[in-house]
């Protein structure tokens, strides 16, 4: 892939995920987005003198679950460290994080491209560790002199930082990695992974490897921040690769050259450019040391194993099962699994009810998912139970009504909450018995001798006109039945 490029792009990601715990990491304040500023605070998360942290064990357990899902090793002993730096939204002057003994390390995430543009790939996970989120500074950008405002609601929200190996080779791979990671975290109920609300944030480290005279050169590593959607991450990295190549052509500067430091650049999605923020040389020394206020955390082998057993079926396994057991195309399996486990469960019920996976998948993708995206709800709020939809599809399969009439019935069921039978009744749909259909066909054939003649000459398409007329005279007729019958009767004429 990208064989045409004169360089290989090397990318590693740091993903921060806010955990969906009820309370914060070190105090009992509610962990919730969107409250009025500074209403979800207490002496602990506001960093008041004398206050002390107490770990919320459920945040640790949730992190272990995520780490197990990422195939990480879980040390039985982990500890907290202080990362010291000054910033207005960090009221203690340090962030409680994990430095040398993280809660998990050495994992991986297998990614696969549904479009098949690159082969399946294993992305290494260096570590996943837990830390507390900072508050938010709200700057008045209109005037440089205006006061900044600080909202401490987010302070102490549990954050899982997932650091990948530099195993990603293109913005496209990054996109797949991020959506697979997000899906896994959603399946494991770790986080709602909402990038708009900041519950999933991505920083990227990127440089290029270039073969020069048989030697491999590497451009200086750049950390790209401030990317607020997966799309922005991909755009920023595509931009950065080109920028680094151009800069290298210009300066020839390589990683490890004297004076080369790690640069941080901020992505401006509107302008489509990144801007240098600071070089790491000027950045602070965080003076990590063990957090004296928190005892180390221990877990047993048996507890880790219990997490492993409780993982359930993860997205990759689910995709494989949909293909193997329900004969779905990989693309279908991918679409369904990406919607999350509740939709897949809906699929299982529906496929079971009609005993056909592909048809169930078609109906879900064409009808159910369209409704969900138009209305903006999840499958949990979909008004038609899988059993009801199954019964409707069974009628369609039995040719009691056409697919398009079936769609009308489903729309009626969605809006009224009626059963398929009641919905059909509301729409005036009654089954036309075969005698009535035959009678109708005979009348149409007699009224259209030209069509009969065409058919006899082998122009089978001519029958379409009769199907159209039949639907006008009785919308409840089955078009396929009319078509077959007309052809047979014309032949007999």
């Amino acid at each position, binding site marked *: 892939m990208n064989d045409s490029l004169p360089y290989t792009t090397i990318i590693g990601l740091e993903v921060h995920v806010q955990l969906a715990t009820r309370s914060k990491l070190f105090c009992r304040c509610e962990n919730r987005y969107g409250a009025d500023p500074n209403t979800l605070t207490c002496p602990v998360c506001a960093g008041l003198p004398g*206050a002390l942290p107490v770990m919320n064990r459920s945040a640790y357990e949730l992190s272990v679950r995520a780490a197990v899902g990422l195939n990480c090793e879980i040390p039985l002993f982990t500890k907290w460290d202080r990362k*010291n730096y*000054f910033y207005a939204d960090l009221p203690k*002057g340090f962030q409680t994080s994990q430095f040398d003994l993280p809660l998990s390390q050495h994992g991986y995430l297998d990614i696969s491209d549904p479009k098949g543009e690159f082969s399946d790939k294993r992305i290494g996970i260096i570590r996943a560790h837990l830390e507390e989120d900072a508050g938010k500074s709200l700057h008045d950008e209109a005037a440089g002199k205006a006061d900044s405002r600080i909202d401490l609601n987010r302070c102490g929200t549990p954050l899982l930082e997932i650091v990948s190996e530099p195993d990603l080779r293109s913005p496209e791979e990054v996109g797949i990695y991020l959506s697979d990671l997000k899906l896994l975290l959603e399946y494991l109920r770790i986080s709602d992974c909402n990038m708009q609300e900041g519950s999933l944030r991505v920083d990227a480290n990127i440089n290029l490897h270039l073969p020069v005279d048989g030697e491999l050169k590497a451009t200086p590593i750049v950390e790209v921040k401030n990317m607020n959607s997966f799309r922005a991450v991909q755009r920023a990295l595509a931009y950065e690769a080109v920028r680094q190549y151009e800069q290298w052509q210009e300066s020839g500067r390589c990683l490890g050259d004297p004076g080369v430091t790690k640069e941080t650049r901020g992505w401006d999605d509107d302008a489509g450019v990144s801007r240098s923020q600071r070089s790491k040389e000027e950045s602070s020394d965080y*003076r990590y*040391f063990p957090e*004296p206020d928190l005892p180390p955390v221990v877990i047993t082998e048996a507890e880790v194993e219990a997490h492993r057993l409780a993982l359930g079926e993860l997205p990759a396994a689910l995709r494989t099962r949909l293909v193997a057991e329900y004969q779905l195309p990989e693309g279908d399996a991918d679409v369904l699994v990406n919607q999350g486990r509740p939709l897949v469960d809906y699929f299982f019920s529906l496929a079971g009810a009609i005993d056909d996976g592909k048809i169930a998948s078609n109906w879900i993708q064409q009808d159910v998912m369209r409704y969900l995206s138009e209305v903006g709800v999840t499958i949990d709020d979909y008004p038609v139970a899988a059993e009801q939809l199954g019964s409707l599809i069974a009628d369609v399969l039995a040719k009691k009504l056409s697919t398009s009439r079936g769609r009308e019935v489903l729309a009626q069921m969605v809006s009224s909450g009626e059963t398929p039978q009641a919905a059909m009744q509301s729409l005036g749909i009654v089954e036309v018995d075969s005698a009535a259909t035959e009678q109708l066909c005979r009348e149409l054939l007699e009224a259209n001798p030209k069509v009969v003649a065409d058919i006899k000459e082998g122009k089978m398409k001519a029958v379409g006109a009769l199907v159209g007329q039949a639907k006008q005279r009785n919308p409840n007729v089955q078009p396929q039945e009319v078509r077959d019958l007309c052809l047979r009767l014309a032949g007999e004429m």
Partner: protein
Amino acid sequence: MAIVDYTATELLERMDSRDLTSRDITAAYLAQIETHHGEVNALVRWDAEGAMRTAEAIDSRRELGEPVGLLAGVPVVVKDNLCTSRHVTSCASRMLANYCSPYDATVIERLKAADAVILGKGNMDEFAMGASTETSAFGPTHNPWKLGHIPGGSSGGSAAAVAASMAPVSLGSDTGGSIRQPSAHCGVVGLKPTYGRVSRYGLIAFGSSLDCIGPMGRTAEDVARVMSVLAGNDPKDATSIAGPVPRYEMSCREPLDGVRLGVIDEQFGEGLDDEVASKVEMAIREFEGLGATVTNISLPHIRYAIAAYYIIAPSEASSNLARFDGAHYGYRAEDIPLDEQDGPLVAMYRKTRREGFGEEVKRRIMLGTYSLSAGYYDAYYLRALKIRRLIAQDFADAYKNVDFLIGPVTPTPAFEIGEKMEDPLAMYLGDSYTVGANLAGLPALSLPCGHTAEGLPVAVQLQGPALSEEGLLQLACAFQQESDWHLMRPELTKAE
């Protein structure tokens, strides 16, 4: 005998028998404070009205026969680094000169639940950094025994308040000796409990892995009674110890038979004042007379204790004090100069911290910041942690052979105010005998055992294994039953 000369235990007896009311008692102590504040400067602020209201409320409950707490009606002074939801909690710093905590420290809640009457806040070295109470932003506290001398520190105000009869008991905090050393210099009993025995929630942190809150009083029995109130698990402090708490004031009078005392060899060498040495040796003989067996014990790594302590405590302090930056509460500098390089936020931090902190606090923040910096961490902080483990092991080994350790609290009696302010190293060496217990997280008690020719108190230090506070208090109680150092009072100037 005047009301202010009674012990807390005696005051409680007199309140129970209705000979005295908390109102009488509180008024007497407040009068003592008002009269002698100018000489001693033991308290940074007190609340006469609030104290009297509390006293009256407790009196009426006692009158009605309602159940009352273990310290019902007893006045207490608490160190100014303990957060109180009423009035200012300043740590004797300009940085927090007007800071009001929205909550009570756990020990304050416990005192209130025990119906104690909190009189006010004890003066201290700024942020508990010092051994003389000279670094207070509110001026030094004077030793009630000799006003030109320091009372010790950092809990100098709490110790001087008891010595000057401004309160029968008080609370201090001890990070490297800050309860025991001022107790020794002021001639009162001070207990530094096992790390975690008393909740630190609401204690404004200095060295979090070393900080302990503890009681001070004239008698071991009073100290035991306050300890019964303070001790216990606190779900708000993750380093707090679980498990049952003894009723120390009930057990402290029980005799301790066949106690084995170990004399710490390393603490009787160079640097120990002759007069102090001889008083401590006399105390050791008195313990022998009480039936203790005495052997000599070596703590081979204790000579590195000061070096390790002055890496670990400042390192933690540099992080703990980062929050005082002017952004959220406390002092904020005005007229921030425009700083081209760092911008207005950093310029505000700089000026605020330069003006808000005193010299000693800044010195320790710099020491700690340096020790934790990249390139120095392994050579300083990490090695200090290794020494800390070795010292803890020394104590553990010692307690295989003896029950308690005995030695001096301080190398010298209280020095003169101003004498060591220009020589921080000499000041730090004054902590030589006390920091070991903090590094190992073990309990230790300072017990008055004599006076120098100049009339300055001298004390003996008793140290024990984890959770041996009961034994330490029993030893101290037995000693006080046979001696009368705790009955002596300094002569303060009469009110004009």
